[in-house]
């Protein structure tokens, strides 16, 4: 049973890595979901899962431990699931806030924080794209450049500012 499990774990980890490396915030969160599933599969395999082994505490013969899988890995998996669920929810909220603030879900278009950025939002912040475009045109880089293709109205961010 180990070989198919290993293959499944490998595929999940590979696709998770691919998703995380995409420049897209939602794929980032989904990539971490795949990572967490891959990890849990790995832990099941570690617990000695075979086609014939029963779940812990519910084996064929409840009085003997023969044929049961190790009960500790499922325990670890339960904890890991709860934690990855909580962190995933938090990450979704942060991604939404980033999208609402900057009107883009592409992390590469977010302002680069160099010196002094956190002091206030008026600090100079510029994207690599805007910088390249400015350098290409030969003029001075703009002080503020968030998205190269600004969308009509940043409704979410405006609402949020009002509510604050």
């Amino acid at each position, binding site marked *: 049973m180990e070989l198919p499990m290993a293959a499944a774990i490998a595929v999940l980890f590979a696709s998770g890595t691919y998703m995380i490396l995409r420049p897209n915030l939602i794929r980032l969160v989904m990539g971490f979901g795949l990572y967490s599933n891959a990890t849990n599969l790995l832990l099941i395999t570690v617990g000695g899962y075979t086609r014939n082994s029963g779940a812990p505490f519910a084996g064929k013969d409840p009085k003997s431990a023969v044929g049961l899988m190790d009960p500790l890995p499922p325990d670890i998996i339960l904890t890991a699931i709860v934690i990855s669920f909580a*962190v995933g929810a*938090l990450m979704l909220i942060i991604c939404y806030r980033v999208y609402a603030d900057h009107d883009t879900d592409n992390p590469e278009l977010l302002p680069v924080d160099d010196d002094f950025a956190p002091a206030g939002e008026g600090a100079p912040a510029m994207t690599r794209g805007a910088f390249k475009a400015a350098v290409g045109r030969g003029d001075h880089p703009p002080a503020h450049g968030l998205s190269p293709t600004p969308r009509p109205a940043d409704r979410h961010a405006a609402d949020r500012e009002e509510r604050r």
Partner: protein
Amino acid sequence: MNSLILPLLVPFLTGLVLALLNGWYRLEKVVVLLSSLGLTAWIFWLIFYVDAHGVQAVIVGGWSAPWAVAFVADRLTCIMLGLSIGLSTIVQIYTFWTVTEQQQKYFFYPLMQIMLLGVNWAFITGDIFNLFVAYEVMLIGSYGMMMAGASKAQVRQALKYVAINSIGSTLFVVGCGVIYATVGTLNMADLAVRTAALTGQRAGMVTAGSMLLLVVFALKAAAFPLIYWLPDSYPVVPPGINGYFAGLLTKVGVYSLLRVFVMCFRQEGHEFANTVLLFLSGLTMLFGVLGAMCRWDIRRILSWHIISQVGYMVMGIGLAGSVDPRVVQLAVSGTVFYIVHHIVVKSCLFLIGGIAERVSGSQDIRQMGGALILAPGVAGLFLVAALSLAGMPPFSGFLSKFVLAQAGLAGGNYLVVAISIITGFLTLYSMSKIWSYAFWGERCREAAGARYRGMMAPTAVLVIFTIVMGIWAQPFLGIATRAADTLMQPGEYIQVVMRAGQTQQQKAADPADGLHLAHLRQEGR
């Protein structure tokens, strides 16, 4: 020793109460103050108790020893708990003057308590998977603290911080799985017993699993290739709390490295991890200090210095791979001493940075000029802390670097010692840059009438601590050496953990400790 549960229970309950008191801004501060002071008093009692009576342990949940989660307090744990709780008290008193009602409304103090809970948990737990849970609790608290105020820059940086730490968490669980598959236990004491007997292929598997943990801990500690998240994310943490971040959060990683790679993994070829760490430490020191030299933002300069300082501690853990037990003892006790020094001085510098920002109204040291005239007391505090960080003789920084350099020379690792000394000089350069731009020079602007005197008192406590630790170092070095001995020869630790869940009758019936510890006691490391 059921009271070992207190460093977890008190912050947890305080956090809950504070969450219910949301909106009663003054009452919240009173509750924080009482809870922190009480816990600080208790932890100082525990340090002296454990130093006198040896390791204490408590088993949770009624299972017997190697399966149940154990909370263990040996000397190293007590030192770390003392620093964590003491520093959280100081930092929270400092924030009484900086926190805004807006921040308090969004659960500033409850999240701080949750973070404290996670940090304490990471120090006191005796189980590797439980350490993972502690990390997550600590991280969730720190995500909240990082976003206190929710400005755009904070949310942006929190995203990076959450993402890189989630990768770390994944690797952590995978590492736990690999080690559990090979050794069959995750209890630290049991690991130390079982890995000592491993050779050949199985030892290789454990080394592979431990490398995953090394990546995770190095990520948390910000060791060389995994440093770039730190100088971006720490500057957005609210002032005051960034002192706690700078002092404690990376040191949780260093503590885990120390605990796991000096005490737990004893299989054949375990020195490989130490060699890797030694290699990384030199690069960490150099990159950290070079990054700091070209910055002008005071928070960023200090953040980059955290990285270079972590390099020294990682160097100590790397030197602990030596075959000579005397070198190992020097290296480990030097690392413990360095952790104490670093936590105190680094958080102190962040707190002073916060005051200097408030006095001058800027984060750019070129615009801070003349703070010496505006606030001479702050300048005095900064001078002591900065010289201590760079390793000037009367203060604690000198001794901690001296012990590590001694260990390096005794072990024949001349190159890394040379790098550490160069890093010390470059740190001095960077500190004198802050001094000459921010404190000397023309006054750039009028004082905004900022009130900062209340923030001085908690900062001064830390400055006094580094002076005392430098001049009256013997008791500190003594407890650091005894903590190193427990790590190197964990016989007592293992015995206490294994017997923690037993009743008196079981203990009497099983005089041989139920374990074959003789080889561990004699072999040492």
